[in-house]
């Protein structure tokens, strides 16, 4: 075995091992982090195979974008945050699709392996440094693979449209008020929404005004709430929503969340 093969094997082991950790860890955010390790090892694998461009794209797109999307997803749905204790039958992490998931995974692997075997058989490709750079890739992509490339743009279009249709049922038709978060969908109060609405509405054009306003309607903590009261009540800034949120939020504690919801709504 050459050094390259050893590194490649090690990276493969890391990729598979961390992938197993992704599906077994009891902590959703840790699962996302193990996914980062897995993708990173995969990128290393590409690198060993001299596919430089693809390797960095793997880091940029999968590690840098897809996992961030997953993290956002974990944070904004009702998924449990923090370690989840194992609890037999009604385990919150067990959706009951274990076998279906396994079947899909095996089927996907089978398809991929079949394609690879059918595509390459026992042909061998000599690896040469620089063969996977941007230029050879661009050349073949835009000369040979024109149609798949154009089809991809339609795929991206569909993805974007799907994303907005699914995520923002609250906005759309002209007569709707834009930006209202439906609590049922966002899973409750929208802290940042409250802050921003307050900031935008009570916040003045001036720096000081803007900061008092937006700080105040943050609603969760005592210090900023205090300033909100001042901004809202005493200097009489007409920021209806922000003030309501801040006033209730200033009671501190759990009420803050409710205040924020009002502020955000």
């Amino acid at each position, binding site marked *: 075995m050459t050094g*390259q093969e050893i590194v490649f094997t090690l990276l493969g082991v890391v990729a598979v091992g961390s992938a197993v950790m992704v599906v077994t860890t009891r902590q959703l955010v840790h699962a996302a982090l193990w996914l980062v390790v897995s993708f990173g090892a995969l990128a290393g694998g590409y*690198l*060993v195979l001299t596919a430089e*461009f693809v390797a960095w*794209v793997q880091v*940029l*797109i999968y590690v840098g*974008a*897809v996992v*961030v*999307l997953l993290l*956002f*997803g974990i944070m*904004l749905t*009702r998924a*449990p*945050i*923090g370690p989840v204790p194992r609890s037999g039958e009604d385990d919150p992490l067990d959706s009951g699709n274990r076998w279906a998931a396994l079947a899909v995974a095996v089927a996907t692997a089978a398809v991929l392996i079949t394609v690879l075997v059918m595509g390459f058989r026992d042909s061998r490709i000599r690896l040469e*440094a620089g063969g996977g750079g*941007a*230029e050879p*890739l*661009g*050349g073949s*992509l*835009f*000369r040979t693979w024109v149609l798949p490339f*154009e089809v991809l743009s339609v795929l*991206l*279009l569909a*993805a*974007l*449209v799907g*994303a*907005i249709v699914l*995520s*923002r049922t609250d*906005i759309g038709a002209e007569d709707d008020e*834009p*930006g209202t*978060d439906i609590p049922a969908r*966002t*899973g*409750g*109060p*929208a*802290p*940042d*929404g409250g802050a*921003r*609405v307050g900031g*935008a509405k009570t916040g003045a054009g001036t720096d000081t005004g803007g900061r008092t306003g937006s700080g105040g309607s943050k609603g*969760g*903590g*005592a210090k900023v709430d205090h300033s909100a009261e001042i901004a809202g009540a005493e200097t009489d800034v007409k920021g209806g929503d922000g003030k309501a949120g801040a006033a209730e939020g200033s009671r*501190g*504690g*759990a009420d*803050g*969340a409710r205040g924020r919801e009002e502020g955000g709504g």
Partner: protein
Amino acid sequence: MDLYVPIVVLGALAFAFAAGSVLMAAFTGPKRWNRAKLEAYECGIEPTPQPVGGGRFPIKYYLTAMLFIVFDIEIIFLYPWAVAFESMGIFALVEMALFIVTVLVAYAYIWRRGGLEWD
């Protein structure tokens, strides 16, 4: 692969430095236990109970990440195109223009639906 050796070395050095500093901090600093100090900092009040599990975030963040992925993919295709452009001529330009316009259709749709608004 020789090109990557300095990257790995610098990465290892930086990691050793960062991890070393973070671990060292536990020994160089004083340790004075104080209950309030170990609570989450919320400007002096009692921390909001269960702040994280209860408070969720606007869906807009998710949409932003989604937009980011799509446009990141677009950029990833623009790079090899730009690098190889000289050798490909006008046809490549037309291809890319088609691609960009198709994605821009989605962009315009999102703009119209208010997906880019952060009120």
